[in-house]
């Protein structure tokens, strides 16, 4: 196994390109390192931790929070900018894995993990986050998280996720997950909700679901049902039923049956919507 520690992003991208498809970006390493140790031991490991900009959290332009790909779950759960601009993301980050994993696991790794109930990924879908992907022929590009999840950067890609941009919104938000233990378990199903409420009715709704499809998804049918409606318990219940019936495409695996996942999706979506209706919007403090 070859190993590099580039100091600059451009260097890292050259290395990834030169040694693709056997080049790997090393971030927190909690997923990649055990994976590589159990497989063939050749290839090129590009440890990007010396690239300073990948660690930064900043308000890039008015209303856009830019989070470097190496920011850890722990930093997301504690950082003042994240708590102020994206409390939904901070809330989800506080529930990732264990204390030990939150100290190490990164936002970039969470988005590239391919886990269908990845906590940060589900929260960021509801935030309309964009992914900045570098290494393409035309320089860095911004993809919606939805596009990013479709194109999924596997290991060995020449491209690299360098940052996540979260647009400011004045939404009420909530995050709900269910797991076998109450902590340190991959969510069976998780739901993130962001609703913008204007004079008592829902102007804009985002409902993201994890664990009910091969990748985290937006519940677009539920979102359409919510928009224009009032923030009532009846609306929450119907939208949650639509999300579970029309948006969720769960399958059975060793952890839960498709039927159970669909049932829980409705329960959690309803809880999350009710909590969001009751919550205070970002910025209203």
């Amino acid at each position, binding site marked *: 196994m070859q190993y590099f520690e580039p100091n600059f992003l451009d260097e890292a991208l050259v290395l990834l390109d030169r040694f693709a498809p056997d080049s790997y970006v090393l971030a927190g390493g909690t997923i990649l390192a*055990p994976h590589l140790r159990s497989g063939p031991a050749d290839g090129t490991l590009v440890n990007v931790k010396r690239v300073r900009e990948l660690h930064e959290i900043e308000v890039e332009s008015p209303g856009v929070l830019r989070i470097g790909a190496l920011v850890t779950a722990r930093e997301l759960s504690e950082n003042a900018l994240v708590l102020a601009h994206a409390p939904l993301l901070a809330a989800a980050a506080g529930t990732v894995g264990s*204390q*030990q994993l939150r*100290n190490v696991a990164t936002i970039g790794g969470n988005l590239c993990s391919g886990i269908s109930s990845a906590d940060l990924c589900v929260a960021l879908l509801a935030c309309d986050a964009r992914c900045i992907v570098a290494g393409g022929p035309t320089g860095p590009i911004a993809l919606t998280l939805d596009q990013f999840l479709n194109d999924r950067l596997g290991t060995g890609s020449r491209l690299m996720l360098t940052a996540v941009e979260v647009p400011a919104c004045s939404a009420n938000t909530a995050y709900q997950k269910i797991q076998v233990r109450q902590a*340190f378990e991959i969510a069976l199903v998780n739901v993130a909700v962001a609703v913008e409420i204007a004079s008592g009715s829902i102007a804009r709704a985002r409902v993201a679901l994890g664990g009910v499809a091969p990748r985290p998804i937006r519940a677009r049918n539920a979102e359409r049902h919510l928009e224009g409606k009032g923030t009532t318990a009846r609306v929450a219940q119907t939208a949650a039923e639509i999300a579970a019936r029309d948006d969720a495409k769960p399958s059975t695996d060793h952890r839960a049956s498709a039927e159970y996942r669909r049932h829980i999706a409705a329960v959690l979506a309803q809880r999350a919507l009710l909590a969001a209706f009751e919550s205070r919007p970002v910025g209203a403090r």
Partner: protein
Amino acid sequence: MHPITLFANGEQHALVVEPLETLLSVLRDRLRLTGTKEGCGTGYCGACTVLVDGRAVNSCLYLAVDTDRREVTTIEGLADEDGALHPVQAAFIERFGLQCGYCTPGMILATAAFLSDNAEPTARDAQRALAGNLCRCTGYQPIIASVLDAAARLREQGRTGERPGKRARIRSRA
């Protein structure tokens, strides 16, 4: 092979490590700090928990290359300079927060890191903080009692917020 300098329990070590070599393997096999235990080797059980710059990590997942110029604290380095046990160690003994002892070094280090951030935890806080540390003997009740007792000892001794472990003589990378 890659050169690193790590500070283990305040002592400086210059090492050449393999890219995928874990911190656990460096601590046990090279530095002979065998107080750190390997359990699952995949980040689920927490037996291998050590502190890197004061924060709890699974040393079975943490790569040695990432410890360059960092401070690593193992169970061997937690006691005070004069040999007096750290309040978390003393509390685990007093409250019988262990039986076979295999998970204990990890439990104690995870507790020390958690209490440096939370001086007045509830039992619920303690359970959440130790969710990444499995114990197959105790049923956890004496462990949670030990954590709460340790928090009280730290408060009584005016040591809340103190970063656990010995400091290296050279400042580590930010």
